[in-house]
């Protein structure tokens, strides 16, 4: 929450001593609110005032980093409760839980699947982020499993145990990979905080009660650790939704520091389907990290797709560059299909075109990222616009025929488009799924 000039002024000494170079404290406060000067230009401010102002200059939900390199995960630093207000910024980290009791062979087999849990959707790569290792055996076995897993995956790690000594033995050798350690509670927090501090790695603070959780983070802060993630323990679905919502509300609306951290949820339900549904609900309801046991691609694809949907910027739909895309081994006889530059429309059509194995030109008209029907209604997908695009993208030079194929939903523009473009307009199917059979019929 950004402070206004007046909010800042209240914290200044109000002596107008001019040491900051401004005639009054108020003038200085106004510049500070605009971030045009730094707070340390005022030598007179009290320590208390300084601490308060510095705290409010931080984001209400701290940004936390786990892992390293190009697979590192950043979560937190969110500004809104509802994505229509602005957007959600840092997509939820999705992780798979493995037990340390697995045999070496099982670990290798599972990681072979887990490492492949990334998919391409509408031009973006979507991927899981974390592997969590849960202690069920002794300290040595846990450390050995963590070592093996760490060597076999580039993903970030979460180490799950309530025994600080076991965690220490497992985490120390891989500390530079910034694993997340789970979890400090009201009893063991001193040990965990010391460990997080020593290894400079992030730490989960866990308590089922929100008030006690806030006390816990304050205690951990006073041990010198503030790279924290919050967990409110296992509880029924709606209670969990309530906790996640409260933490987000208190951080954003009250700038409540003790809960100003991202959250983590662990799915205990191991039903094939229900664990996926639960993970999706927590993604919708603000969780920063979600860990589950299921790792079949059919379980993870919907989770990652939902995350991609919800973290899309509502003000800026995903777009592709408007141009004529040659698909397959095109020739001057290849058909020309028209669509918009809205990523979802474009990639859906592209997928079907590729599946049809018919080489074709796909012309993406600049509709400012609007879908076919929306763009048509908003007059961004008009006969003029399409004719102009055909010329701009040099379709007359690329093909020797005179036909173009338009989406079935805009069949009404056919006549006008024929007139404007001087081309024969063929009305394609309404749904992209109809494209392969449509193209086959066209050729025969």
């Amino acid at each position: 929450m950004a402070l206004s000039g007046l909010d800042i002024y209240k914290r200044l000494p109000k002596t107008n001593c001019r040491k900051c170079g401004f005639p009054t404290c108020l003038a200085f406060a106004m510049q500070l609110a605009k971030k045009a000067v730094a707070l340390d230009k005022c030598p007179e401010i009290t320590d208390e005032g300084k601490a308060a102002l510095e705290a409010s200059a931080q984001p209400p939900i701290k940004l936390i980093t786990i892992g390293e390199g190009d697979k590192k995960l950043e979560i937190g630093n969110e500004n809104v409760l509802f994505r229509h207000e602005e957007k959600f910024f840092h997509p939820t980290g999705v992780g798979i839980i493995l037990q340390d009791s697995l045999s070496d062979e099982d670990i290798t087999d599972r990681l072979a699947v887990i490492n492949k849990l990334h998919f391409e959707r509408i031009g973006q790569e979507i991927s899981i982020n974390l592997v969590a290792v849960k202690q069920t055996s002794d300290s040595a076995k846990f450390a050995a499993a963590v070592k093996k897993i760490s060597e076999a995956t580039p993903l970030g790690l979460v180490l799950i145990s309530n025994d600080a000594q076991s965690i220490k033995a497992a985490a120390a050798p891989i500390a530079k990979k910034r694993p997340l350690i789970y979890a400090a509670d009201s009893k063991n927090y001193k040990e965990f905080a010391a460990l997080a501090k020593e290894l400079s790695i992030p730490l989960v603070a866990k308590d089922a009660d929100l008030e006690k959780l806030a006390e816990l983070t304050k205690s951990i802060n006073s041990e010198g650790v503030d790279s924290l993630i919050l967990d409110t323990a296992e509880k029924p679905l709606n209670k969990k939704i309530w906790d996640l919502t409260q933490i987000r509300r208190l951080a954003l609306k009250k700038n409540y520091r003790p809960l100003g951290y991202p959250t983590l949820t662990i799915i205990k339900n191991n039903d094939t389907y229900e664990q996926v549904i639960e993970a999706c609900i927590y993604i919708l309801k603000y969780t920063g990290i979600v860990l589950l046991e299921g790792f079949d691609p059919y379980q993870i694809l919907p989770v990652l797709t939902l995350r991609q949907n919800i973290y899309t910027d509502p003000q800026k739909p995903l777009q592709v560059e408007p141009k004529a895309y040659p698909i397959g081994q095109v020739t001057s006889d290849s058909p020309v299909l028209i669509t918009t530059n809205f990523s979802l429309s474009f990639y859906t059509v592209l997928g079907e075109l590729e599946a049809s194995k018919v080489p074709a030109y796909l012309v993406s008209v600049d509709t400012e990222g609007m879908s076919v029907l929306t763009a048509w209604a908003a007059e961004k997908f008009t006969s003029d616009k399409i004719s102009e695009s055909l010329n701009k993208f040099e379709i007359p030079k690329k093909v020797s025929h005179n036909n173009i194929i338009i989406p079935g939903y805009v069949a009404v523009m056919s006549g006008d488009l024929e007139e404007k473009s001087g081309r024969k307009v063929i009305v394609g199917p309404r749904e992209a799924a109809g494209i392969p059979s449509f193209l086959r019929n066209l050729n025969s």
Partner: protein
Amino acid sequence: MPQELLKEQWPNAIDVITIGATSQEGGTRDRAIKVGGQNGLPYLFEESDMPNKPVIAMEVFDIEPVDWPDTLKKPYGDVLSNPVEWAKKCETEFKADLIALRLAGTHPDAGNKSESDAVKLVKDIIANVKIPLIILGSNDEEKDNLILPKCAEVTKGEKCLIGDAAQKNYKTLTAACLAYGHNIIAESPIDINIAKQLNILITEMGLPSDRIIINPTVGALGYGLEYAYSIMERGRIAALGGDKMLAQPFICFVGQEAWRAKEAKASASEFPEWGKELERGILWEAVTASAFLQAGADILIMRHPKSIEIVKENINQLLQK
């Protein structure tokens, strides 16, 4: 001093809509279903109530569906060409809360069934199943305006839910719902202003707001889900904040959207990296449905019995006290 929790109290609540009428209420259903009535955002029971739980309607078509993948057809066995048996199976075996009869075969391009065909089927369904009924047209304006009023007439007293009315075509259906005591589905194209405008137009014709259900036009997981999700959140916030012309329950056509998605339909041999096909399709529909529950959906129209079972279990967990 500990920070107090932030509990939100809203000045308005969502209208309660009753679908179906028992013999005491002038119909022949074995139960009436109520939706709506919540006075807060979904499932935040520390600050609000949800007197009526979300319900699931199963779709039944008057013609055998052509675009359903085998994984979706299989649980229905041989009833897909027999709408009455299909509806009975949904009621008894799959425990649907409501039947959503889609008169797709009346469309001029899809068989062009006559009004008497449609009326006969509606009567047969009413006679053979006892749960409340949703009647849906074929999306051909002219044909719907001819057929839906007849269907409304022969189901007088049953308090059906009939749809869809749209901004450009709402008068005929509104008049029919008014005359024969039914509820109406008001459809808007992912646009909260049009949703409100349409509700105003319908209520101005005399149909009370507690007989309207909003169809915000949803997209499937991966295919525009987020647009409808945010529109529903915005609509609900406005409604709870006091906008009575948006304070109606939501109906989401989850099944028809989810089963169009490639991820729900494609075979595992085509996309081995996506994993098992049956489970993938089931989850695609169930995740789409569960996401809309979080945005405030009250009625879900669904297809795969297993997806429905999963979502019902999810609803139970959400409502667990």
